[in-house]
């Protein structure tokens, strides 16, 4: 571009004409008048002169807004010269006016097509006509090259031209504004359009711009492109659905189905033309394949299409992003659910393990109960036989006695021996010594006391009437009979004890007990105490039994409670001390209290709080003997009976109070089944949690 003409700087209007001097002068004046003060008119007559002048003007940097070219010049045709000048970029903007008498269409077309002609006037041109054309071209020039000057120079310019220019610029502004609005609409206004409308608009516009490119129909299940493979076009879906998936650890993961959108292959375009997803048709698909070149062309050709396309694109990507975010959230949720599930599983496992150990415990007790009962039953027969045999021995002996002389005495001794209550060894020795002194025969006294003869008179009565020689014989016989008697007595009492143990064992264990029954609490306590046997030898057992109603319970299970509690007490006392068993009916008439009290050292406060816990351990991490496991079993059994256990302990007096309702809880009663069956175990765990 030539230097912009500025106010006060002279611009030159070149007039090229070979007309005679007079005509040239007149033309120059006219042009000078028309061009105003900005323009001085230089006149050249030939091509050569024109070139020289241009040279000079170029050196002085004088802008040339207008060349008026007569077609007849010295040394060349006007149109050729104009073309030549136009070739020089310096004069591109210079307005070019051709004055010709005859111009062929070809010549003019040549100039016009090169942009080397702005106006052509027919010669001879009217002065007014020429002036007007000049004003218009100059105004044009200035409007284009130095619009800032136009305002100041308006009086010199063609007013119509100016107003035209104004109108044109206004139109331009409006066009620009409209275009801007259109662009804005792409992201704002177009959002009012539904996806369907927008897509329809887009396809309509594509069809218009690309002259309705062919549709493709693909059957369902066809792979349109594969992840990682090159893609050179996009598909605009007209009907049908596609599924977009990616491979993850040898597994195809479907990422988009509903969210795939109407344009597929786009990520491929962004990703250097390799597909990001594998695209498979989910239904029969009608789509519009568009190559990248076509797309480029179409977008350039139509601003509206750009808007539609961009909007559809953004919406598609937004949908996919949303879907991805949803997937992310879904994955998060799944993870959370999974970890929750995992926690639950761990909990369940723990519960199962605890249940199993409980089951084992229950099973063990049931087995023990069954075994005990079995043994007890088996023992009954031999015991009956022993007892019966002893009875018959006695009868047979008495029958024999009746056959011998002095037999009544023998029978009398036998019966006495059978009835004889054994004296403490100490007393026996006292009798022995006294009798020995009286008889002055220690050996005889020993034998006499041995057969239950403690006094001299008794001895004398026994041997009265017998010759001294026969006395030894008689004593020997009496000793034998006495031993038979005490032997029978011992058989009887020993068998009696076994019978009692067997009875207690059976009522203690009760393997056939599946439903609660009304029982005497005291009987269970006594059975339990009896079975402790020698464990109680050094313990003073104090019974403070109150008057109790019968209690609806599972007696064998309660016996387990008594056993555990008493066992704990004995353990705490080191096997020596006082065990108090106290029972009492509650004042409400609905409950009974059983207290197991020992005189042991007491349970430390910090231990008391955890003592019923299943996993109670001492500081060393070892289960304290007799505590913990046993007590948690007690707690569970008592809870199942609807009762409670309380502990009150201080040095010298530790008291476990078991409170039981007279009636077994109704709900549990219905559910009660064989020990160790799941229903009962549930029961157990429910109570276990509540405790």
């Amino acid at each position: 571009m030539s230097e912009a003409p500025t106010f006060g700087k002279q611009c030159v209007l070149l007039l090229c004409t070979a007309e005679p001097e007079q005509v040239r002068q007149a033309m120059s004046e006219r042009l000078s008048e028309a061009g105003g003060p900005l323009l001085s008119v230089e006149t050249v007559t030939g091509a050569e002169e024109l070139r020289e002048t241009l040279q000079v003007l170029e050196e002085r940097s004088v802008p040339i807004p207008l060349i008026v070219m007569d077609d007849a010049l010295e040394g060349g045709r006007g149109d050729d010269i104009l073309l030549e000048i136009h070739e020089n970029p310096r004069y591109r903007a210079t307005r070019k006016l051709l004055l010709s008498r005859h111009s062929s269409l070809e010549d003019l077309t040549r100039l016009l097509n090169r942009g080397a002609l702005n106006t052509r006037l027919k010669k001879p041109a009217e002065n007014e006509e020429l002036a007007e054309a000049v004003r218009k071209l100059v105004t044009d020039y200035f409007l284009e090259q130095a619009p800032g000057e136009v305002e100041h120079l308006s009086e010199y310019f063609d007013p119509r031209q100016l107003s035209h220019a104004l109108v044109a610029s206004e139109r331009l502004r409006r066009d620009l504004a409209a275009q801007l609005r259109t662009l804005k609409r792409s992201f704002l206004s177009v959002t009012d359009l539904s996806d369907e409308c927008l897509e329809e608009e887009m396809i309509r516009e594509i069809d218009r711009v690309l002259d309705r490119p062919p549709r493709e129909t693909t059957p369902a299940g066809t792979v349109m492109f594969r992840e990682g493979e090159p893609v050179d076009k996009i598909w605009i879906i007209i009907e049908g659905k596609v599924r977009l998936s990616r491979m993850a650890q040898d597994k195809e993961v479907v990422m988009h189905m509903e969210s795939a959108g109407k344009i597929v292959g786009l990520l491929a375009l962004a990703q250097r033309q390799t597909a990001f997803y594998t695209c498979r048709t989910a239904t029969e698909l009608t789509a519009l394949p568009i190559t990248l070149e076509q797309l480029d062309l179409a977008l350039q050709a139509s601003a509206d299409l750009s808007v539609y396309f961009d909007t559809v694109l953004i919406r598609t990507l937004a949908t996919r992003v949303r879907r991805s975010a949803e997937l992310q959230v879904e994955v998060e949720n799944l993870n959370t659910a999974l970890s929750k599930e995992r926690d639950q599983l761990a909990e369940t496992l723990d519960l199962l393990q605890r249940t199993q150990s409980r089951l084992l415990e229950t099973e063990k007790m049931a087995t023990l109960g069954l075994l005990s009962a079995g043994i007890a039953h088996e023992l009954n027969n031999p015991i009956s036989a022993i007892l019966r045999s002893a009875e018959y021995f006695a009868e047979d002996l008495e029958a024999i006695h009746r056959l011998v002389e002095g037999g009544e005495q023998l029978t009398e001794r036998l019966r006495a021996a059978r009835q004889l209550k054994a004296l403490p060894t100490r007393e026996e020795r006292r009798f022995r010594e006294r009798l020995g002194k009286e008889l002055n025969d220690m050996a005889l006294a020993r034998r006499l006391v041995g057969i239950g003869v403690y006094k001299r008179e008794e001895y004398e009565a026994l041997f009265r009437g017998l010759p001294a020689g026969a006395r030894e014989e008689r004593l020997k016989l009496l000793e034998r009979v006495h031993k038979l008697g005490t032997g029978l007595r011992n058989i009887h009492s020993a068998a009696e004890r076994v019978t009692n143990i067997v009875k207690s064992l059976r009522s203690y264990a009760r393997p056939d007990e599946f439903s609660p029954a009304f029982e005497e609490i005291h009987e269970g306590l006594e059975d339990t105490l009896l079975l402790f046997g020698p464990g109680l030898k050094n313990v003073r057992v104090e019974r403070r039994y109150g008057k109790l109603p019968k209690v609806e319970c599972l007696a064998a299970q309660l016996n387990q409670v008594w056993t555990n509690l008493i066992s704990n007490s004995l353990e705490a006392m080191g096997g020596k001390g006082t065990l108090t068993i106290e029972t009492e009916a509650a004042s409400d008439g609905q409950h009974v209290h059983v207290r197991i009290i020992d005189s042991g050292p007491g349970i430390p406060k910090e231990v008391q709080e955890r003592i019923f816990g299943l996993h109670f351990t001492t500081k060393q991490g070892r289960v304290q003997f007799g505590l913990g496991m046993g007590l948690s079993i007690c707690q569970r059994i008592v809870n199942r009976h609807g009762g409670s256990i309380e502990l009150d302990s201080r040095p010298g007096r530790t008291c476990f109070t078991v409170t039981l309702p007279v009636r077994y809880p109704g709900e549990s009663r219905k559910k009660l089944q064989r020990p160790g069956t799941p229903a009962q175990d549930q029961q157990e765990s429910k109570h276990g949690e509540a405790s």
Partner: protein
Amino acid sequence: MSQQILVLCVEDEQEVRDAIVRDLEPFSGYFQVEAAEDATAAQEVLGETLSKGGLLGLALCDHLLPGETGVDFLVELNKDSRTAAARKVLITGQARLEDTIRAVNEAGLDNYIAKPWKREELQEIVKKQLTEFVLANVEDLLPYVNVLDGVRLLEEVRNRKSDT
């Protein structure tokens, strides 16, 4: 017999005590067989015997007794110089391993008999233990030749004669 040798049986259950005493009858002509239901009664008998210049030859004890246990009683006997030489036998159904070990270590337990016992077994053990006792503590062995291990006693008698 120059010196009374006491065979002491401590058992709290009367039927069992009767049975043991009767099992010990073969020895009763030669030894003073006494029964006691607990350690206290046993100490009384023992005191009397010792005060009359007698010796404790054998203590046959149940473990679980009212009051002092059998093992405790045996340990006491072992600590007392007058009774330390006595043979000590535990006859029990309920002694735990720890009790028994203690009896061996602290009471110098000589034998352990589990209930229920057999008469021959008991008599054999008593015979053997009393033989040991008289060999170690009695000068005149001849009176015991018939009731105890005669072969060993006579052999010892010969040995002693050749020594002098």
